[in-house]
Every structure is written in C-alpha cells, then in structure tokens.
C-alpha cells in the first residue's frame, strides 16, 4: 500500500484538504474573501491572487452520477465538464463568487454560457487563449489578459499594480518550484512518495491560498524526505492524457502493482513544470508562460519532437518502464494525438497502454485486468 506515515503532518493535512477541498475556501469566504473557480491550467491564478481573490480549481466528481447537468448539457460533451457543471447546479459550488473559463478546447468554448444561465455566480469570465505560438498570438493573449485583469480589478474593487502582480507571480513560482522539488522525490527506486499522494497534494494546493499551499508543500517535502518507508519497488509508470482530477484512478494503477512516478496531465506536470519569468512586464510574462509553456495538446506545436519530446525526457529522467495513455471520451485534442503518440513512444522503446475512459470509475473490473496485464508485461 502507498499510504502516508501516520506521523506525517504535511501529508496528513493534504489528505484532510483532499477529502474536504472547499472547507478553507468557504471559511475565507465567510471572512470576506471572494473565491473564483477556474477551469484548466490555462487560467492565470497569479492575477486572481494579486487581486486578493482566492483562485479555486474546479473539479468534477468521478463518483457522483450526473443527474442534473444532462438537462442542460449535450451528452457528447466532455464528461469532466458535465460532472463539474452537475455539481454546480446541485449547489456544491455555491461558495464561488465567480468562474473563469478559458477557451482551451471545443468542449469548453461556450461553457461559460451555461454557468451564466444556470449557476449564475456574480462573475463569469471567458478567456480567449490562442492555439498558435507566433508573436502575434502572444500579443493578442497579452491584451486578453489585460482585459481579464481589468475585470478582476472591478470585482475586487482595487487596482492590481505591476508590483503586486510580480509578488503574486513569485508566490506561484515558488509553488511550482516546490511541486517540482516534491516530484523529484519520485525519482529514486522505489519512489519516496506515491503517484496517489502526489496527485492529492497537487489538488489540495489548488483549493487554498498560494502562501498556505507553499507552507503545506514545505511540510510535505519534509515528511517525504524523512519518512522511514516509502513505496515498494515496482514497475514505474508515466501517465499521459486528459484530465484526471481524482486520485482513485492513480490508486487503481498503483494497486495493480505499479508506481506512478510522473504524469503529463493538467493536474500534473503541465501545471507546474515551468516558471513565469520575472520581468517589468508581468502580463507579457504571464502570456508567454500560459500560452507557450503549458504542454497541453490543445496548443498547436509543429513537430513530433515539440509535441512529444518532453514525454520521452520525463520517461528517461524518471526511469519509466511503461506509459499509460489516458483519454477521456470526447477529449478530441488528446484522442487525435493517440495513434501518432503511441507509435512515437513505442519507437523509443516504451511500452504503451491506451485507456479510453468515460471519466467515472465505472467498468473497474475490466480496467483493473487490463492494467494488471500491462504491468505484468513490462515488469
């Protein structure tokens, strides 16, 4: 089993926050802080932090049946989005003062309209993110970010100075650096912390203020580096794919006899592998980071090396034995990569298992059998 030591204060706190993710946000809201829910790792949390707002990453619930959202949303839409919206119309996101929806993919492009119509928080903001990486794309996106900042200033009733924005960037850079430091502790064989713990830590940190997250991460790193017993030595896996916002899938993989040592997902390295450069033009820096550095397949990159090279590098650095390609149904940008990516990885000598998921934890038996067979094959 990959559980935290009972004495691990940081990891214990992570577990607690993971179980009750909205508790701190609700507490802060009752004290007057405005809480802004956001989708995707393309929403610049730094600007929200700089406006003294609490950025809160919106998730779905893989265990909660979708019972209300399908009244409004077409069933051929991303099930993660449908699940998150289902929670929202059921009142589980009532503590949010607003929501930010970036134009990450075709699924989410008009999604803010549904929030506007049926959830009706005070603030609903669509953020247009280009798909290309040319100078004109960055200029366009920087202007979008300026408008976004202006709208947050209005909501927060206060100006966001460049100095304040740079301070927020520093906080979030520290956050990303700490997550990378924690992730490095998965490099040894066996890794010092499990994939389940890592994902729970990432998720927990996206629900509380960034300074608190950073303190929490320092505590987690201390716990992990000093723990007596980490994981057992097993096959080492990388998981690539669509959204995974619940640790149960990672837990399932680890229960099948593997260690998940690195993830290329939006609740994984995509959200913390690079930093925002510090500059006198913080919006320009944010535009370059959010558009240029986040390796989501929704952004057009020309060559296979540009698109997939980092996965091979992860695989080498973390001494990976195999890769799971995890695609949530209707996630067109991931689904369209799969055949070429599989070939690319196999040519590099990496065994690959492709899983197409409906996002929920249904069909566990079949999934477990396939993962077990894969793990046995690569061991």
């Amino acid at each position: 089993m990959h559980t935290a030591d009972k004495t691990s204060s940081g990891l214990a706190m992570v577990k607690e926050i993971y179980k009750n993710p909205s508790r701190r946000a609700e507490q802060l809201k009752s004290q007057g802080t405005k809480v802004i829910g956001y989708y995707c790792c393309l929403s610049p949390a730094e600007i929200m932090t700089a406006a003294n707002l609490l950025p809160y990453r919106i998730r779905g619930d893989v265990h909660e049946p979708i019972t209300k959202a399908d009244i409004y949303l077409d069933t051929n839409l991303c099930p993660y989005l449908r699940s998150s919206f289902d929670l929202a119309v059921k009142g589980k996101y009532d503590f949010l003062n607003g929501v930010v929806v970036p134009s990450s993919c075709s699924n989410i492009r008009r999604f803010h309209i549904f929030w506007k119509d049926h959830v009706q928080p005070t603030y609903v903001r669509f953020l247009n993110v280009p798909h290309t990486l040319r100078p004109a794309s960055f200029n366009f996106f920087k202007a979008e970010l300026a408008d976004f900042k202006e709208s947050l200033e209005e909501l927060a009733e206060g100006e966001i100075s460049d100095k304040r924005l740079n301070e927020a960037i520093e906080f979030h850079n520290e956050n990303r650096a700490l997550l990378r430091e924690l992730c490095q502790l998965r490099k040894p064989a066996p890794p010092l912390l499990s994939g389940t713990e890592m994902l729970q830590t990432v998720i927990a940190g996206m629900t509380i203020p960034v300074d608190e997250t950073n303190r929490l991460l320092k505590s987690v790193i201390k716990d992990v580096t000093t723990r007596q017993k980490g994981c057992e030595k097993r096959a080492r896996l990388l998981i690539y794919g669509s959204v995974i916002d619940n640790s149960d899938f990672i837990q399932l993989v680890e229960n099948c006899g593997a260690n998940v040592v690195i993830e290329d997902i939006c609740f994984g390295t995509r959200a913390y592998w690079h930093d925002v450069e510090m500059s006198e033009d913080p919006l320009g820096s944010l535009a370059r980071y959010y558009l240029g550095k986040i390796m989501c397949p929704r952004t057009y990159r020309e060559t296979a090396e540009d698109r997939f090279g980092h996965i091979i590098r992860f695989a080498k650095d973390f001494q990976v034995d195999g890769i799971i390609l995890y695609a949530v149904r209707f996630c067109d940008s991931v689904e369209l990569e799969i055949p070429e990516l599989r070939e690319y990885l196999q040519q590099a000598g990496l065994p690959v298992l492709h899983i197409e998921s409906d996002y929920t934890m249904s069909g566990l038996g079949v999934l477990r059998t396939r993962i077990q067979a894969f793990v046995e094959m690569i061991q």
Partner: protein
Amino acid sequence: MDDKEEHRKGPTKSTETANDVGKIVKRWYTSAWEAKQREDMNVAWCMMSTPTEILLAMDIIPMFPEEYSAACAAKQAASMYCEKAETAGFSVDICSFCRAGLGYASTYSEVDKLPPETPYGGIPKPDMFISRSSCDPGYKWFQALQWDVPMWVYDDIWPPLEADLWDERMARRYINYYSEQFKGLVAFLEKVTGRKMDWGRLSQILADSQEVWRLSYEINQLRKAVPSPMATQDHMAAVLPFWILTGTKEALDFTRRLYQEVRYRVDNKIGTIPNERYRLLWGGMAPYHNMGIYNYFEKLGAVFAIETEYLPNIPIDLDVSNPLEALAKREYFSGRRPRSIPGGSKLGDATIGYPLELFLELVKDYQVDGVVMHFVRSCRLVSVGQLRAKQMLEQHLNIPVMSFEGDMADARVYSEAETEKMANTFIEMLEASKTIKR
C-alpha cells in the same frame, strides 16, 4: 427503385441551379488533379472558412477534406472510411468528417491508384495544409495524417457570445490578429511555392467573392417568400460554391444564376412542393449520408424554409484595396450574423451557440411552424448548445420542436426508420397545433 434507395441517391432539389453543384464540384476536383500533375505546388488542403482568395491569387487550388467527407457520406462511403480510421486507433467519438478524411487518406497512402469506386474520383494529395483552430480537429486532423507536407495553422478565434462586436478596442484587437495571421499565411505560401503574391489580383478576387456573399445573402432574403422558393437541401448544396469556391468566376456565375432562379420562383409563386402546409426550420448540420430526409418531410407536406447552418453574413463594406485587412474584418464578423448589425450586440452567433434571438428572427421572418433539430454526435463545435436551444425554443417560443440524434457523415449512428417515425408524429403534432391556433 424504392423510396429508400431514392433517398440514398440524394435529395430532390427545388431549384435547377442547385442541381449543378455536383458537376461544379467534380470539375473543381478535376482541375485539382490536373494541377497536381503539373507538380508545381498547386494544391492545398484547407479547412472550411480558410480565406481561399489568398490561395487563388497565388494559383493554388484549395481542396476541403471536410466537404469531401460530406461528399463521401452522400455516396455512402464515409462510414467505411470512418471504420478504417478507427482501426488505426482513432476514437469513434472524433469528428466523423475527420475520421472519414483520415480513412480516405489512409486508403490513398496504401495504393498507387485510387479504386474506381472512390467518390468523385477522390481528391489529390496536397502540397500544403492550411488549418484553423475554430475546432480541435480543425488543426489536429492534418497533423494526425503524419504526411510530410508543410502546414500553416491560423487561429480562428472569436469573441465570447455575449461580447459587443462593435466595441472598437475589441474589434481592433481581433482584426489586427487576423490580419497579422493572414500576412503570415501569405509569407508561408510564398515560401512553399516560390511564387509572389499578386496583390492586385487578390483585390479583384476579393471583390468577386464579396459579390458572391452579397448575392447569397439576398437569396436567403428571397427565401422568406411563401411558398418556399428554395429549400434547405438546395442551400446545403449551394454552400459549396458559396464557401469553397468563393472568389472564383464559377462561384460568381453559379450564385448569379441561383439568385435569378429564386427571384423568378418568388415572382411566380413557385414553391418547393405543390401544397406547402408546414414551414420548418432545420437546426444543426445536415445528415449528408441521408439527404433524402428532407424529401421525406416534403411528402408529409412540410418544407424546410430555412436553416441555422451556413447562414450568409449580412454584407459589410470592405475595402478590397487593402485585402488582408478586409479579409480580417470579414473573418471577425463571419458566422456571427445577427451581431454584425450595429446595436445587435447581444444577439449572439448565427451557427455557434444557438441564441434564442437567432431563432426568434428566423421563425418570424420565415413564418416557421416548427423546428427540427439534428443533434450531431461527433461535432462538439456545433452540437454543444443544441439542447439549450431546444429548451429555449419550447419555453420561449412555444413552437413544436423535433430533435433526433444522428451524425453529419457517419450513418452508423443514425436510424432512418426511427427518424421517419418521429417525423410522422411531429407532423401530426404540427397539425394539431395549427388546428388549435385556428
């Protein structure tokens, strides 16, 4: 030939001009094959809404695999190509135009010569790809082919539904971005072909395409007449010259002829069917694998007077002497028909998002009795919001709505018998609704 076979053969169109579309498209394909034989970088595969004027001004023939997938669907070949793509590992949920295109390309790669049954003789391999980002397959599809062909992707990026398109700061930002991208496209084409852009020629081509857009808008205005002079199946065919051949003399000639014919039919009260009892609005993409569905409704006394897809933009003045800026402006306003009227800022997109205001306008202007909505499984871009539109129509307009699940190209997710059964019930409902109103 029984009724079903007749459907599969294709719909009966109301205008003679629309019947020419197949021949026009075939000629276009032939010209692309001839250009390909010259081996001088002449054929581009593009996504719909690519500013083809730029390509035409550089003697490049634009081919549209999306449109070709629709043509394959009409010839009952798309599902077979989709299966081929699925066998190669592409998910069954991916856009069926894209899957069919991937399947066709895979077939093409395997053989020296395309088999004779290939719909319309096929489309030639491209010398370049032009993709756009308005939907995910729009920029991933050509990449997924893994062909060693140079590619240019541009951002087809729209303001949110609720934005005021006439906000000067916002308009300038989007138009500048499009304009910069089109400059980049010209540079890409010059590099790939080794030829220089002829700017005077581009202005002339743009003037012609503007005339096509103006006429196609006028045709749609004429379609308000009772009885309906031109039905949805004609429109779905006519969009090919409007959209993919825009800028060519052939498109201009076709559109002029269609305008004259529709004008004549209006003046002489010639309808699509002899006894027009119900006027309908078609919501969503066409089921290209079974266009005969329109004729099935006609047998029940119903004609599709108008549709939500491919509605021509309200013409706007463009300075063709500054063609890239003009194209950028057109792109900014395209597909957002009601909002392109000053003061109409809250009306939303024409085909994207299905705002209630669009339906209100169409239902009123085209004297519509009922709405039929085709919920397409595999296109996120068009289908997200269809359910919301249906609810809004029922709640706010109190108008009968029939909705059915299907797909634009993949016949496997469509039940003809079930859809026809629903159509029968829907017409009975319309009749009852008419009786109550009387």
